């Protein structure tokens, strides 16, 4: 994309999409929702971080990870450890046999803080760890897998097994991790009570801000040469390799990027919800995150945000009115999206809404239309895997 000036970008079609999302999240939802519902939207948005990562790693580069919940969980646990230490002052925990350590450690006969908890007294270390720990794990996994050319289904299943291992470890080592209960009863962040409505509202806006930051990073990557190599790798891995690119390095990079996004999402989750639990790390949580991405459109980072919002809103809505039915609806959604709309909502939008837009925009935004039109008029039945409604494609005449 040629973004000669930021102003121009904002009035381009892509810029308008971002503005639309920003308007929805920053203006419309806070106006129409009460603080409780807004907090729930904030929670859904934390999943969107993972979904954006999955767009990069699965949609673009073709690496399906069924263990994204691991990174989400690690980010969340890092933040939760910091908050838990802050909540466990010697005064607040005076009734314990060892005051000053988190309550669950005391229940498990620990008498001093384990070494790996110590650094989490520091907020700056925690912020680093929120991104660093998931990225480190992703790097190790990626290095081991991709340099050995493990891919596709094998990679998916191995990540799933890793999720299983971590879940068993966290639940089993409850003295160090809080076990199946997770880390609960988090109260303040640097003395600021995160449980009040006001704080929750502020956290919501922080979350939206972080989300846009992540969106722009993702957009930058996908529009760079790197992004094109990822897509090329997905389509023709061998050719990319023969062209002299180190395929493994690119895969590791994008996997780490997705892990970093997920870690940020997890940390925001901990702040917004007020605790962290191992249930996300498991397989079910991880697969659900994939469906957010698939529903939104696996190739569209904005679609991923809408996907996460919609699936979760539907889930909450369904389970409030027809609790017995929501698994049916959820299952049908999975099957329907995969069978009928492999490119999710973004694909539908592109097929049906964009041509309408084109008519409206035709005279005004000649440049944008020129870029989008060849795609929009293409029949979807064709191999649709390699283009994205939200960006200019990497069509040959541009690269």
């Amino acid at each position, binding site marked *: 994309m040629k973004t000669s000036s930021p102003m121009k970008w904002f009035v381009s079609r892509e810029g308008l999409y971002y503005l639309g999302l920003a308007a929805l999240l920053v203006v419309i939802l806070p106006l129409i929702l*009460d603080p*409780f519902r807004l*907090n*729930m939207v904030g*929670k859904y948005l934390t999943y969107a971080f993972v979904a954006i990562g999955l767009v990069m790693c699965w949609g673009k580069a073709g690496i399906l990870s069924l263990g994204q919940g691991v990174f989400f969980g690690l980010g969340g646990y890092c933040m939760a450890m910091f908050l838990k230490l802050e909540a466990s002052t010697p005064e607040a925990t005076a*009734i314990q*046999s060892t005051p000053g350590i988190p309550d*669950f450690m005391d*229940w*498990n*006969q620990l008498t001093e803080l384990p070494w790996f908890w110590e650094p989490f007294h520091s907020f700056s270390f925690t912020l680093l760890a929120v991104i660093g720990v998931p990225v480190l794990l992703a790097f190790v996994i990626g290095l081991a897998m991709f340099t050995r050319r493990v891919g596709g289904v094998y990679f998916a299943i191995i990540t799933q097994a890793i999720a299983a291992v971590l879940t*068993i470890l966290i*639940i*089993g080592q*409850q003295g160090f991790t809080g*076990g*199946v*209960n*997770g880390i*609960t*009863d*988090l*109260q303040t962040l640097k003395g600021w009570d995160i*449980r009040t409505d006001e704080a929750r509202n502020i956290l919501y806006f922080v979350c939206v801000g972080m989300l846009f930051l992540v969106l722009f990073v993702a957009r930058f990557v996908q529009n760079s040469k790197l992004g094109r190599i990822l897509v090329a790798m997905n389509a023709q891995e061998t050719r990319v390799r023969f062209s002299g690119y180190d395929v493994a390095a690119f895969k590791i990079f994008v996997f780490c990027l997705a892990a970093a996004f997920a870690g940020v999402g997890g940390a925001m989750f901990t702040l917004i*919800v*007020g*605790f962290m*639990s191992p*249930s996300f790390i498991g397989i079910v949580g991880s697969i659900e995150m994939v469906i957010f991405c698939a529903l939104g459109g696996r190739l569209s980072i904005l679609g991923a945000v809408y996907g996460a919002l919609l699936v979760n809103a539907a889930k*909450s809505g369904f*389970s*409030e009115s027809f*609790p*017995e039915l*929501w*698994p049916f609806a959820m299952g049908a959604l999975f099957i329907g999206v995969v069978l009928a709309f492999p490119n999710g909502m973004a694909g539908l939008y592109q097929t049906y809404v964009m041509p309408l837009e084109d008519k409206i925009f035709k005279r005004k935004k000649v440049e944008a239309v020129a870029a989008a039109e060849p795609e929009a008029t293409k029949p979807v039945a064709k191999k649709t895997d390699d283009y994205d409604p939200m960006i200019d494609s990497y069509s040959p005449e541009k690269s």
Partner: protein
Amino acid sequence: MDTTDIAASGRSFSKGLGFRKSLMTLAASVMLATSAQAATPSTAEVNTTGLAVTDDTVTVGILHSITGTMAISEIGSVQAEKLAIDQINASGGVLGRQIDFVQEDGASDWPTFAEKSRKLLRQDNVAAIFGAWTSASRKAVLPVMEQYNGMLYYPTFYEGLEQSPNVVYTGQEATQQILASLNWAAETKGAKSFYLLGSDYIWPRTSNKIARKHIEDKLGLKVSGEEYYPLGHTQFNSVINKIKLKKPDVIFASVVGGSNVAFYKQMKAAGIDFTDEKPLLLTISVTEDEIRGIGGENVDGIYASMKYFQSLENANNKEFVAAFKEAYGDDMVIGDVTQAAYLGPWLWKAAVEKAGSFDIDKIREEFAGIEFKKAPEGYVRIHENHHLWSKTRIGQAQTDGQYKVVFETEELMEPDPFPEGYQ
């Protein structure tokens, strides 16, 4: 009123009216337990904190998993709570108000529990929440209850180490369930060594910690092994071999969920006949509900330590069992937790009526000493630490899936969530 009347009237339960009428008479006797309210007090008087109370209704919340892996266990609690609410309504309601309930699904997912409890308190302004089952779901809900000053009635036997002003624990805490039964095993059965086995999470681990302290320090006996398996584990042959090698007198088991089924089936298949009591198996996790899944023939002869068994011989329990079966079908079984869940609405009603108000803060002051004489388990009273005084009973499983009560403590056991010397 005798049980046949209940049974006959209950047949029209779904239609409501006939059942209601006869329940009114039953209720009359129940009302004696609490101070009956003569006239309906005004809403402004009984509700100063904006709860969902109108002139003739009051709304409460029910929050259990009805989907996901925990649904197996939690369904019984939902049924019991709804039954209690129906009965209370039929007997005239609480402070002259009929109880409405909002049911939410925790979906076996702890963050969902937190979200739904917040919804119940913030949006529905419920006057009480009956719900949560696992410790993890309670821990998730707890901060929400404390923040918005709700009141949770929690039915499950659990590990203790908690005493929140916003929770009433209607199940037993660990010492109530464990200590008396270990004494019984040592005294009556002459047990010398114990093998502790559980699923890998906080309740079995804490229970076994208390059990180990008691066995080693108080009884001066031996723990010959302690072992945990991940939740959902289905292969127990290795641990069965270890047990055969160590030859403990007692296997103290706190395996939960689907693992239970696998464990008892494999024990049985490995040629261990529990009726021989070599070794004796004492469990704190298998209620009548679980036996339905395991199969009575596979648990024949095991002992369970609980406060309630469906087979308890007392008039309250006969009425309760009959009403439960009329409402949900003859093939229903009732376990310890189901009964504890049934206590929740009744205890809430008693506390509300004693306080003359739905306000959480006023109710809380009245909790200590509240009694429920019609409890199926016999008689319960709320301790000032929000737990219940209750008896410990030991039942031996029969092939028909019921327990035969072989032992019960003479006195009510005092709840002691922070037991000295067991930390």
